[in-house]
């Protein structure tokens, strides 16, 4: 990553992701039309109540007995909140709200949930990471484990860490989630990408998180 991209991330005035986080803050405090509960009504001041939370996600969800990532946690919470807006995967609102929640963990070391019930899902995520897919027959690991630092055409191959999401990507000229980024790579190797929110994605996220620990959360990061 170039020095100028790093500088853009480091300076909150220059970092375009901070605009999304600001939008997320407004959503956090917004009451549904006609009144009712906002996020803040239950969770209070996010700078206190959400501090360090994103660093622990994905977490085990008691209701579904599966791992759940931060965006699906927000969606599940919204589903229980009368009048709350529907926020589909990858919608501007959901990305903004999760960027705001993620921002409250900025600088916190990524801390995988030690719950042993997550272990089989994490192992499945690792298997997905290591399995060659698509017409081009490439695995995530072939590039991001074995060839990080190399150049795919002009692009420097990163180690594939998830600790900056949701982030602002210059190539997108916009914000996006880790699932959006994973879909980019899957499409690149000419593989069929699962739909947003699919179990495969959450399991991959879970593995990536344990692989990245204890890197600090950088949300909202800026990437080329």
């Amino acid at each position, binding site marked *: 990553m170039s020095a100028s991209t790093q500088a853009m991330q480091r300076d909150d005035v220059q970092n375009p992701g901070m605009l999304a986080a600001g939008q997320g803050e407004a959503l956090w405090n917004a009451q549904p039309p006609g009144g009712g509960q906002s996020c803040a009504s239950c969770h209070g001041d996010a700078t206190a109540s959400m501090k360090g939370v994103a660093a622990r996600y994905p977490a085990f969800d008691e209701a579904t007995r599966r791992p759940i990532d931060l965006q699906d946690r927000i969606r599940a919470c919204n589903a229980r909140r009368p009048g709350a807006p529907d926020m589909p995967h990858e919608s501007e609102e959901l990305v903004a709200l999760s960027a705001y929640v993620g921002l409250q963990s900025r600088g916190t070391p990524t801390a995988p949930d030690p719950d042993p019930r997550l272990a089989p899902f994490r192992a499945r995520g690792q298997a997905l990471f290591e399995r060659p897919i*698509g017409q081009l027959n490439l695995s995530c690991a072939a590039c991001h484990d074995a060839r990080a630092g190399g150049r795919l055409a002009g692009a420097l191959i990163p180690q594939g860490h998830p600790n900056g999401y949701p982030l602002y990507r210059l190539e997108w000229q916009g914000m996006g989630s880790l699932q959006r980024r994973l879909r980019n790579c899957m*499409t690149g190797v000419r593989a069929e990408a699962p739909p947003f929110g699919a179990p495969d994605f959450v399991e991959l996220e879970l593995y990536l998180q344990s692989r990245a620990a204890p890197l600090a959360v950088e949300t909202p990061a800026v990437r080329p």
Partner: protein
Amino acid sequence: MARAILFLATLVLASSAHADGGRYEVLGDEIPKPLTDQPGDPARGRAIVVDRRKGLCLLCHSGPFPEERFQGDLAPSLEGAGDRNTPGALRLRLVDSRRVNTDTIMPPYFETTGLHRVAPEFRDKTILNAQEIEDVIAFLATLKTTGGSR
């Protein structure tokens, strides 16, 4: 003995049946026979090699293409590929490099078996067709750094 040889020959033929309608036969480290009757065209082959959506070669390889910026460094340079490999060896590596190295990152350009989760628009399709493979081989065979032949 004769029966054993016949059996082996049948196996080789059976394993070389191909979804593209063409067929190829692997002998040792090579596919000695061209995939098409029409000889490869080096100029068309060069165009495929530098096309980042068609041949994809320069995503991983570099080579003697001064006009091409941003060449990859994940695989050996194509410079001298014609010195290092016979056309038959180049053919096997293009058709299905997994036969040479099971851990290769080189995509199988003319094989559709043993792949997972291929996107619907690419399913049961090879990356290049038989004539394109021959064109690329014809071009790579011209990449020599030494004056003499192999």
